[in-house]
């Protein structure tokens, strides 16, 4: 089967099947989509899967049943959403994946879905690890605060980071535990790990929220974040970038959730019959001491 076409219209009814709304990053993403739809006058059918791939698939199914014109989908996992992507294709509805891709052995961009717009989580891990290697200044014992166990950003951000660190024998990951992408849990885990590994002097958190939790943990333990312990993370939310400005976080690899403009522009291009590349990469910012102050405006 070929990719279904999209008729050229002024107003579309488009579906946006969000995976969850329990962290600032997702909220920013949703808001960006909604704002852009409102700006362009499209009707956005928005669902929230509350963190369940199965529910997300069912949400997409209900969009297909409602006969939306196109679907924007940030698939929660790379495999479970494939069947509904194919179902949408068969129902003649083009699907645009945003922020996460699916398994290419099961569904192919440009064939089963239009394209994938987003970042590369492994690459984010790589970039932040490279920064650490360059800027550690003799610090070397790393505590890693992982995202939700089993979730793909956690797996990829870990892989991207660990792969680079493995190549530099002077660094050592002394502990790596899940903080569930959440500030409170991140704080508690950091407190415990710092207790058990007092020699640790670098903390790598899979997102800013956990990094902020780690800062609270350090302060409670009487250490100075940024000085005694170097903190790096991923995402680039405002509080995080502000922490760079304050000297508490060393660097953050951005991962922009503001997909709205790019997503709808891509849809318009597709309707206009333009050739869409299979992967539209987000140009993620990278924040560190040199630019945080200037770029804080671009943080979400």
């Amino acid at each position, binding site marked *: 089967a070929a990719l279904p076409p999209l008729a050229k219209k002024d107003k579309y*009814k488009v579906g946006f099947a*969000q995976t969850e*709304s329990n962290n600032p990053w997702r909220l920013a993403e949703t808001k960006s989509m*909604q704002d852009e739809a409102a700006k362009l006058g499209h*009707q*956005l*059918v*928005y*669902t*929230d899967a*509350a*963190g*369940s*791939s*199965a*529910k997300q*698939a*069912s*949400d997409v*199914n*209900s*969009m*297909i*049943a*409602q*006969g*939306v014109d196109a679907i924007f989908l940030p698939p929660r*996992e*790379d*495999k*479970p*959403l*494939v*069947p509904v992507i194919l179902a949408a294709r068969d*129902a003649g509805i083009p699907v645009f994946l945003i922020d996460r891709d699916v*398994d290419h*052995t*099961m569904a192919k961009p440009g064939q089963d879905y239009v394209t994938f717009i987003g970042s590369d989580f492994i690459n984010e891990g790589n970039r932040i690890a490279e920064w650490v290697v360059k800027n550690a200044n003799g610090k070397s014992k790393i505590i890693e605060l992982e995202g*939700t*166990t*089993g*979730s*793909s950003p956690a*797996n990829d951000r870990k892989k991207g980071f660990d792969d680079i660190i493995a190549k530099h024998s002077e660094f050592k990951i002394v502990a790596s535990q899940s903080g569930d992408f959440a500030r409170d849990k991140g704080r508690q885990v950091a407190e415990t790990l710092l207790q058990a590994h007092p020699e640790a002097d670098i903390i790598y958190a899979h997102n800013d929220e956990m990094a902020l939790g780690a800062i609270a943990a350090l302060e409670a333990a009487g250490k100075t974040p940024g000085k005694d312990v170097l903190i790096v993370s991923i995402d680039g939310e405002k509080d995080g970038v502000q922490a760079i400005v304050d000297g508490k976080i060393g660097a953050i690899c951005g991962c922009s959730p503001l997909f709205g403009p790019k997503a709808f522009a891509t849809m318009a291009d597709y309707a206009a019959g333009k050739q869409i590349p299979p992967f539209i990469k987000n140009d993620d910012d990278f924040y560190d001491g040199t630019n945080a102050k200037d770029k804080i405006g671009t943080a979400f």
Partner: protein
Amino acid sequence: MNRVRLVRIIGTYGVLIALAALVLFGFLRYDRFLSFYNVMTLLRYNSMFALVALGMCFVIMTGGIDLSVGSVAALGSVASALASPYGIVPGLAAGIGAGLVAGLINAILVTRANLMPFIATLATMQAASGSALLLAGNQTVSVSYESGFTAIGQGNLWTFPIPAAIAVVAYLLGSLVLNYTGTGRAVLAVGGGEDASRLMGLRTDRVKFLVYVASGGLAGLAGVILASQFGAGQPIEGVGWELFAIAAVVVGGTLLTGGSGSVVTTLAGVLLLGILFNVLNFENGMGWISLSAYWQSVIRGLFLLVVVLLQARLTQRRLGAL
């Protein structure tokens, strides 16, 4: 006497009436609500919950509870995904087998170690979740598309979704067991008075043992469908399924204290809650008010409240005489 019987009937079938009302509402309000596609995908998706709720229903009728069903389903999905390259039967066997093992552990904890069901199954819930993650290496596990395994979740019998057909068969069997076998009666008797049942010569432990194992097996089967329907074993799926199942069972008019309940109305409870999600999605599509996800949970909570209050009124009258 006639009035009593009437009240009893309304009490039992109240959920059916609510279900009909909700469907009618959806039909009148949304264009494609009763479209073939929507109905079939709805049935396909909710078949998993139906199976889990069936097991839960039996456990609750004995006066117990099984919090582990969600993570056991996740475990089952991983196990069956791992076994799926070997074909449908190994896939099924692995998923159901994993569920049975988990159910067996629950059964042993409850009947041999005499743990309170809430705690025993809470522990199993965590252990099953951990096992699923370990087994899957913290990732989703692809199922094999070659072995035909995906037919269980994605295939059709003529035009009827296979998983829904499985659920229907399971409910028919469940209803038969409950109403026409000694074991079924024993389930209700144990829930109605465990000590009395034991003194009456029932092997209460055996009955409880059976329901937990069955619940585990059904959760495992739901896991197989999960893996097959979505093409992947998912170790972190299944969160909150237990509460969905409990809500469905209660909405279906089964007493949480045990001793009284019905299989058919449990299915109606599942559909009622499942259709509610669907209605909320359709409401979003209307574009009048774009309900945020947050409002949806508020509405779901309120809906549960209304149904439960209704049930309470009816059962209170039904049991008022006691």
